[in-house]
């Protein structure tokens, strides 16, 4: 295979890995257009490689966030239950729904989340005096403090995760783009914990998709290798950058990223790309 293609794949992987690791997005939103448009791959091959890139970037980031005490692995496991159920249901009903409509709904949700993040401050709830299963602490490296928080609206959050799982398995994007705002805006999880937890969860979601493609022999190994190596390097850079970001600026940047994703998806829905 042409070494230039491998280098290009690594470069895309690094870029996607950085953004994915900072915001807990995985990076599929960047991998897919490059793989299909720039590298001319079919949807199945592109999805398979993208999922492997997502595993590399999200696990690369999650491992570091777990050590820093920023990923809430318990909450991640809980929310992953309904996400997985949603993803399985989504895969079965995808054939009956039109994709452009889903993309429009998905974009509308992103735009709403983005505007909310831009114009409203972060709401974090203090845990009750007698701590329960949903009281947690994380260490904010930027401020050098231990911070306590209480996860709110757990049932509603779990229900919405089913929808998020279904939408992302039907459209192929958006696991993290929906889950991070959902955790931050609706469940009052601090943004840094939300994105670090999302990285941990996305790895699990991507695993259950990737293993199917892998077992069916749909993975172009050299492409996947180049992309995964790049994505892993990118995730290491991303976790370094996120360490120095303040929560407020992180929400602002995420709001911009969400708008860009929404525009990309709307142009896909309109048949422009």
């Amino acid at each position, binding site marked *: 295979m042409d070494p230039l293609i491998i280098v290009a794949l690594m470069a895309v992987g690094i870029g996607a890995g950085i953004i994915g690791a900072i915001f807990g997005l995985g990076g599929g939103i960047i991998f897919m257009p490059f793989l299909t448009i720039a590298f001319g791959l079919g949807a199945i091959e592109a999805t398979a490689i993208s999922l492997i890139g997502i595993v590399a970037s999200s696990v690369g980031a999650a491992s570091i966030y777990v050590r820093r005490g920023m990923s809430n692995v318990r909450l991640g496991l809980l929310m992953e*239950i309904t996400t997985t159920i949603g993803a*399985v249901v989504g895969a079965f009903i995808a054939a009956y729904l039109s994709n452009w409509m889903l993309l429009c709904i998905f974009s509308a949700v992103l735009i709403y989340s983005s505007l909310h993040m831009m114009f409203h401050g972060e709401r974090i709830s203090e845990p009750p005096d007698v701590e329960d299963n949903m009281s947690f602490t994380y260490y904010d490296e930027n401020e050098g403090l231990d911070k306590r928080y209480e996860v709110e609206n757990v049932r509603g959050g779990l229900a919405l995760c089913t929808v998020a799982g279904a939408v992302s398995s039907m459209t192929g994007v958006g696991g993290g783009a929906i889950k991070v705002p959902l955790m931050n805006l609706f469940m009052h999880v601090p943004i840094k914990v939300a994105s670090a937890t999302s990285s941990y969860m996305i790895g*699990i979601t991507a695993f*259950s998709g*990737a293993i199917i493609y892998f077992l069916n022999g749909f*993975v172009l190994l050299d492409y996947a290798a180049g992309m995964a190596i790049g994505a892993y390097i990118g995730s290491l850079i991303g976790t370094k950058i996120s360490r120095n970001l303040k929560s407020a600026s992180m929400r602002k940047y995420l709001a911009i990223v969400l708008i860009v994703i929404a525009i990309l998806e709307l142009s896909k829905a309109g048949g422009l790309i």
Partner: protein
Amino acid sequence: MSESNLIFSTLRITVISGIVILAIGLLLSEQAYGEKIMWAGVLVLICSPLLGVLVTYVVLIKERDWFWVKVASVLIAVLSMGIILSLLKV
């Protein structure tokens, strides 16, 4: 080893092993066995999140954190069902 260190080390070691194996496979891709090495690398890499869940599960059991052990058990059951259903569908 503390809870987060164990999960961290598991994720870290498997993801790095996967990436290193992939890099070796890529360098040897001209050889006949290069493909096989990359195949192994992809397998190790994509199984790293699963291993992370399993280690988290063991950690929770050791800590006797039963509420979260229940949560993790349900997740493992749901993941297995999801994979079986998808394999049947393809």
